[in-house]
């Protein structure tokens, strides 16, 4: 029973991290229709910046904020490159984000080398109903909850948030209403970069950090985002948590090498089931 509880709790926490990555996919896709496969790259850049900032003697907190800002800046540059210079068709844009991913690899290997690095998260453990959980997991859940609350406030109550929603639901009408859809898209990329960076700062202290960690992160983030149809952040949160829980359960009760395949299979099965049910209704 103890093991089950521990796996569930860590699964929820890691799933929250995936959900943060997924929200990056969702916001960028909603406004620009671009599926951004550089999303994992934003997270890895943030991880490396955190590592360097901590190594340079900056305190925790400051380092992480710096890293998230750096990832947002990278997101901004990528946004300008992909949609800022001209209208790129979505498929071409997707290939461009893959190219950006390779460029980020080059940058990371050049600055930080190709050997795995490690940085400290929040140390220590606490006990819940007899099982010990690392503080880092609690931190991930808390930050994710706060981020989702802030995003809900932002989209529901701020002017810029409503501009985002307008661009997402009808870009043409938004342009008629005087909104610069392209600029909003670039801001979406910066926001997506920041969210990816946040996920990286939180998740990557739990695993070793290499330049190609982004493939795994991108796939998980994409899986969670697609659970919400690349449109709905709350469903993406559910998708991320499902993914995280299944990963942990399989790693705990079966073999860690199955965890990726089985958890993706679960998401896939739910998607197919949903599509089938929709078709029967129509």
């Amino acid at each position, binding site marked *: 029973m103890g093991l089950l509880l521990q796996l569930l709790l860590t699964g929820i926490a890691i799933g929250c991290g995936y959900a943060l990555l997924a929200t990056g996919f969702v916001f960028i896709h909603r406004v620009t229709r671009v*599926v951004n496969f550089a999303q994992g790259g934003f997270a890895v850049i943030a991880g490396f910046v955190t590592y360097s900032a901590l190594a340079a003697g900056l305190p925790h907190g400051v380092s992480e904020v710096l890293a998230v800002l750096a990832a947002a800046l990278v997101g901004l540059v990528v946004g300008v*490159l992909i949609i800022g*210079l*001209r209208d*790129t*068709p979505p*498929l*071409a*844009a997707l*290939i*461009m984000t*893959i*190219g*950006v*991913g*390779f*460029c*980020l*690899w*080059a*940058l990371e*290997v*050049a600055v930080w*080398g*190709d050997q795995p690095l490690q940085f400290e998260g929040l140390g220590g453990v606490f006990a819940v109903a007899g099982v010990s959980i690392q503080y880092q997991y609690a931190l991930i859940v808390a930050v994710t909850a706060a981020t989702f609350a802030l995003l809900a406030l932002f989209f529901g109550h701020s002017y810029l948030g409503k501009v985002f929603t307008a661009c997402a639901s009808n870009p043409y009408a938004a342009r008629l209403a005087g909104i610069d859809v392209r600029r909003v898209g670039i801001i979406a990329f910066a926001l997506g970069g920041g969210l990816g960076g946040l996920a990286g700062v939180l998740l990557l202290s739990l695993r070793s950090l290499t330049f190609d960690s982004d*493939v795994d992160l991108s*796939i998980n983030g*994409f*899986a969670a985002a*697609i659970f919400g*149809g*690349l449109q709905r952040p709350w469903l993406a949160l559910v998708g991320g948590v499902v993914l995280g829980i299944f990963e942990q359960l399989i790693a705990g009760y079966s073999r860690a*090498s*199955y965890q*990726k*395949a089985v958890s*993706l*299979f679960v*998401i*896939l099965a739910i*998607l*197919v089931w949903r*599509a*089938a049910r929709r*078709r029967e209704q129509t």
Partner: protein
Amino acid sequence: MNAHLDQATSKATGRLTRVRSVGFWAVLLVGVASVAAPPFLDEGQQTIYVLFTLSVIASVGLSLLMGFAGQVSLGQGAFYALGAYTAGLLAKQGAPPPLALLAAPVGTGLIAAAIGLPVLRLRGHYLAFATLAFHLIVLTVIAEARPVTGGDLGLGGIPPLLPAPFATPLVYCYVGWLAAAFVILLTGNLVRSRPGRGLRALASSEVGAASSGVAVGPDKLKVFAISAAYAGLAGGIYAFFLSYLSPGSFPILLSIQFLVMATVGGMGLVWGAVAGAAIITLLLQLLQILASQPGLPETLPAILNYAVYGLVLVLAMLLLPQGILPTLRDRLSRRWPE
């Protein structure tokens, strides 16, 4: 007025025929050059040539699926792997190699049809995710089915496709060439046929195609299976050529590379995928040569490799978002006034 219109039309068709005839000569040239080239290449270059023909086969399949049927796949590499393991395992069990090679596309096509039944209910980005997940699942199955596939250690000792005197890289060059030519011809005829026109309609509007009598579901499934069968065929040749397989030879990046090849050359054109495969193969080889120069710092080759590959992808799509061949075709047809 009418005469005016006729003149304009004949001018336009004249231009189009001219571009077509340029296309014809270009194809002839490529055909002759690619047949003549292999004997003049050294063994390393012949290996690259073989892998190039295999990339052509797989990316033409992907181009058929994406450009003509409008479905995105991030799992072409998985079908490549399935074809390779089908052929390799059968040949190791004692099946005659040519039969094992034939079984690769057939088996892969059947698997694709089986998974396509549920998965093709998804479309667009959902399908892209499904195929990506499928690739990861296939890799896990291959790595975990150790008694059958050899797991991560790999499957070695696959017999050659043809007996001893013909088991040279040169022969595989022509095997690859023949397979690629067959696939290109088949695809060309397929997209010009009535079902092919139905597919094109499907790519632009599923509802429109369905209401005009295109059997959307079955047609999509068939194209999905054919596209996978191409990848399976390429994988089968790969298995015999290398005589060793491991899951590490078929990473997610392979699927992405096929996607890049099909897109860079020009989606929706059979020859676009060929051009894309040629360009990406040459680029990767150039980078490889650059990286193997002696006296470079340890990580520099990797940095150069990623940076150039990444920049080329970004710039190519920024400058030629429709792909190289379609842009070239439009330029040509504008360049030639009557």
